[in-house]
């Protein structure tokens, strides 16, 4: 059995963490989609101010 040295193990971790976009590809497609939807909802929320909200008169 070829047991990796600590340096080899660390290098493997660095490789994994160096490219987070690539790492994200290891998730199942449906999970990647749910994250994309969540990010999109944040952007949509930024666009969401409805007219009546902006005109509430606070006194």
């Amino acid at each position, binding site marked *: 059995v070829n047991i990796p040295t*600590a340096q080899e*193990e*660390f290098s493997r*971790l*660095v490789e*994994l*963490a*160096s490219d*987070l976009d690539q*790492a*994200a590809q*290891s*998730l199942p497609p449906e*999970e990647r989609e*749910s*994250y994309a*939807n*969540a*990010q999109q*909802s*944040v*952007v*949509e*929320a*930024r666009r*969401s*101010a*409805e007219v009546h*909200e*902006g*005109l*509430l*008169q*606070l*006194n």
Partner: protein
Amino acid sequence: LDAKDWVDPDTHGWVLHPQTDDDWAGIVGQYAPDHPVPLAATIAAARANGCVSVVVENRYVDGDFRSDHAAFWSQRFEFIPPFVRRMHFFASHIEGEQLHRLPPNAGYLGYAVLRPLAAGPVGRTVVKPPPSLHSATLAVSADDVTLFGNRLSVEGAPFCQQDGEYFRCAHAAAWMCHYAAVRRGLVARQRTRMFVDATPAMLSIERPLPSKGMTLLQMQAVFGSLNQPALFYGLAKMPRVAGVEDPSPPVDGTGRAIPPGKWDTRIFSVVCRYLNSGYPVLVATDDHAFVLVGWYRDGDWIRFVVNDDQRGPYGIIDSPFEDERGTWQAIMVPLPPRVLLSGESAETAAHQTFRSLGAPAGALPQWTALAAGVADGTVSVRTLLRDASEYKHELLERALPEDAVRLLRLARLPHYVWVVEAHDRDARAAGNPCVIAEVILDSTSNDFRPRFDALLMPGLAITYPPDGGSPQAVPMGVGLWQSSLPLNIPEVPRRVRLAS
């Protein structure tokens, strides 16, 4: 209030030693006969901290009220004095003979400016939070005061009351957010008149004065002119965040939709992200605005601490869904203008990374456990906005390896960063170092694509330099480290709290 007697030219001030409830009620009745609640709540906070002496500073020139007076109150046919009184609260017995040289252990509890306005006497106020909020996370800041040559300091959440005609609840709520930022060194101080002057008249059907308050559109314009553009959350469309439950919109018995202010639990996580970061959060109902300045856990519930110009400082909201002020409609969070990334986007990006890195076959067991923990909720995710310089400064106190501290301190970071921590719930509950992993994100990046500045995982710390630089990494142990969240002990300096 009798204008003739408001300013005594022959005295600097006086000391009161109220002892009974009636004594205290007498003070409230003298200064706030028409709207006693805000002043009574201010005094209640001081009394809860053991106040036994009240120093009344006579003929005090308050820059805020003087600005209002010049703009509005001086136009009155009847005389309204341009001076205020300032009330200072002490936990020790102070005699008039000591006022020029207060003892070092005077026990200063804060101050309240009292305007000569029956409809709204309480001006700029900072009082120490009551001991009952000891375990709350509060967005407080330190304020420095000079009283007869004595330098005093108090830590609290700023408060003021509307005056009913010129400076309304929306102005007061905006001012509370502004003065907190001033005391944190984030923005230059503006006088209260500026809040009215900066209100665009074309965004309201009302004539500007006497003021009918502000619309949310006007409030955003005011926050922009204060260099604190506010993130806006309409409760009708709250963002989804990975790991945070998306509640389903309920309907009433007739099939009509119930307003989200009555059920959307995402309110809690959105508000707490900013309060954890030290930023007050403004809430709007249909017709009122107030400021959340803290939160605490009470069993299974989260309670909010509120400064409401009509009710005073440090009130408690048991549930936003049953708030007697009205149904919550919107949330505004005034932030430094360079913060472009939202906390929700940062948290989702971090959540995805924790999941991704634990997914491959052969991943480090601790990474796999982290990925499983954030998915099933046994690992808790906490997100806060930090000044990067403060973040770097406090790294030494967080039980991190020296190599990781060096890597992060030498990293080139923007002025503000979002920090997302993965917590071991048991370790946190026990008060031990509890952070399993941590992501640092560039606050100037976009919600579409949050940019990572650094990542701390079991076994590895790595930074992602800007402008296409090569990632830099150092080994880490697999132990837990200290959270950068506040530990909620206001009396003890932060660095002491973190070390203890």
